[in-house]
């Protein structure tokens, strides 16, 4: 029964290709995005459909390398590769792509992507504690609002925006509800199932449906999960992971461990963040929420350390793996601080640097197995 529900999540991506095709034929608008900093509420309020774009698979990387340097993060190469080879149906459906200046690689890649589609890049400030950063971010939200109103046709009404905020808040709470069940021993879901659920929901154009599916899954899991007891519990942090780049998760679970949670942005990182509806201005409320995302592009990034500490304790993690994609400087550098914090707390820790290819499976496997041997009694 649980297996069937996970499969429903897995099928979202395929089903939504058909739904979005119909939506487009009826004149509906689609806005594609890559990153959790994207305030999707604005698109929903404008009557459009926000959809997550492909960028987690190896296949289109060689095509991307005709334009982009090889020594670049696989996520950027894959995103651009899917776009330029027209292999991502969601990119194809998109009337507008919205990116953010999270890192130098993405920022410059979007310049080339704009040769393929209209691209709007939000300037994300990187020192979120300062007042000027917050002001800039609010202005960037308003600039995006204006662009969406122009591209999607029609004004974004405040009450529509509050409604969209409520919808996204409810989806976030529902997703957190499922993820939190993994705090138990044995955990409810394997790492691969957890990844399938979290990654797939970004492709659904119908958030009410996603919320229902998440709530149903949660109900079903309360009766008992699908993971055997007694396995070493591993928490994964670092760069985003999607289906197609789940090799570290697979290696952990093949070696006898179980991934109980993902601190990364495709996992839990944004789930404790709700838009505070007590503000007068919905844009200001959204700016507050999004600027709190503890991504390594922020400096300093204490929020990630706090979240990790809380998650290691809440999810009873026996070990932590920090996965950095090749050439992601901010996560790679920040790993030293993560390592120190966890090792000082006596938590076995492993930093892995890899890409989407399968060339290093044996090398990763031996490190992961050794980490699990450290945890064994």
């Amino acid at each position, binding site marked *: 029964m649980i297996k069937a529900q996970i499969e429903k999540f897995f099928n979202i991506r395929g089903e939504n290709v058909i739904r979005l095709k119909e939506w487009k034929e009826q004149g509906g608008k689609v806005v594609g995005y890559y990153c959790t900093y994207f305030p999707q509420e604005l698109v929903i309020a404008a009557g459009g459909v926000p959809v997550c774009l492909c960028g987690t698979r190896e296949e289109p990387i060689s095509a991307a390398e005709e334009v982009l340097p090889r020594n670049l993060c696989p996520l950027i190469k894959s995103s651009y590769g899917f776009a330029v080879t027209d292999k991502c149906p969601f990119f194809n459906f998109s009337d507008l792509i919205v990116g953010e200046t999270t890192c130098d690689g993405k920022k410059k890649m979007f310049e080339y992507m704009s040769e393929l589609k209209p691209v709007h890049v939000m300037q994300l400030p990187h020192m979120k504690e300062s007042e000027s950063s917050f002001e800039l971010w609010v202005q960037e939200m308003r600039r995006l609002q204006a662009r969406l109103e122009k591209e999607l046709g029609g004004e974004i009404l405040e009450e529509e925006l509050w409604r969209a905020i409520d919808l996204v808040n409810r989806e976030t709470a529902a997703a957190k509800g499922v993820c939190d069940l993994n705090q138990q021993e044995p955990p409810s879901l394997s790492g691969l199932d957890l990844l399938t659920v979290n990654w797939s929901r970004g492709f659904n154009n119908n958030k009410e449906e996603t919320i229902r599916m998440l709530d149903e899954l949660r109900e079903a899991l309360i009766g008992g999960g699908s993971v055997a007891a007694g396995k070493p519990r591993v928490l994964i942090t670092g760069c985003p992971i999607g289906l197609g780049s789940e090799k570290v998760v697979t290696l952990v679970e093949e070696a006898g461990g179980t991934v109980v949670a993902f601190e990364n942005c495709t996992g839990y990182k944004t789930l404790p963040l709700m838009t505070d509806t007590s503000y007068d201005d919905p844009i200001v409320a959204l700016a507050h929420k999004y600027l709190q995302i503890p991504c390594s592009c922020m400096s300093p990034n204490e929020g990630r350390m706090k979240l990790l500490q809380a998650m290691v304790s809440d999810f009873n993690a026996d070990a932590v793996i920090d996965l950095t994609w090749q050439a992601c400087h901010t996560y790679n550098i920040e790993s030293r601080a993560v390592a120190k914090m966890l090792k000082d707390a006596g938590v*076995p820790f492993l930093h892995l640097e890899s890409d989407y290819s399968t060339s290093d499976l044996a090398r990763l496997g*031996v*490190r992961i197995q050794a980490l699990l*041997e*450290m945890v064994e009694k």
Partner: protein
Amino acid sequence: MIALGLDIGSVAAKGVLLDGERLFTCLSPTGWDPRSAGEALVAALLAEAGKCREEARVIVTGYGRVSFQGADRVVTEISCHAKGVAKLLPGTDTIVDIGGQDSKVIRISQSGKVIDFAMNDKCAAGTGRFLQVTAAALGLAVDELDNAEDRALEVEISSMCAVFAESEIIGLLASGVSKGGIIAGLHRSIGKRVATMARSLGVGGQIAFTGGVALNRGIQRALSEELGQPVQITEYCQFVGALGAAMLARTC
């Protein structure tokens, strides 16, 4: 019950058999087929000890561990090295192991439990393979390197990539730099590379140097200098992983 530990590495396959107080060792090139290399070791060790296969518990480690059939357990070389060094060089805090295709640093407890470890990343820099490629460019076998080094004429080899180091060496030879000086530079370059990895993990007290590359006195010296303290060597430096596996086989 006798205990058999196999460490099937990328270059050499090592086996240790423990029978009460008796200890047997065997080493052979791995070649292209790690599975047969492991089986040949088992046969040789059992014959020497006069035992049969049914009496032995077998633990296998090393990169060939996955292809060997019939092991009672498979354990990583990281855990096996920790166990083996705790026995051979008691008091060790940090192990530096340089093998054929990787180098690793392992922090261990006194009982031989792994506390932390690091391994070289995607390339052959600082491994036996790096030595093999560069020795070939000098027309030497790997085991001839340490006698041929000339520390007085040491030059800097800056390439970390084995392939680029080879062309760097060809260039140095062409400009008349002595072989002995180049070899001293190679030893230094490996010592530096591995010492950096060790320091990034945090080196504590006594350091043990293991693996096939530990037989090279030039690298022993370079590594000791780079780490600022003498590294400890055991005559069984190539058998540490296999011994650790055999010790684990005794208790599993």
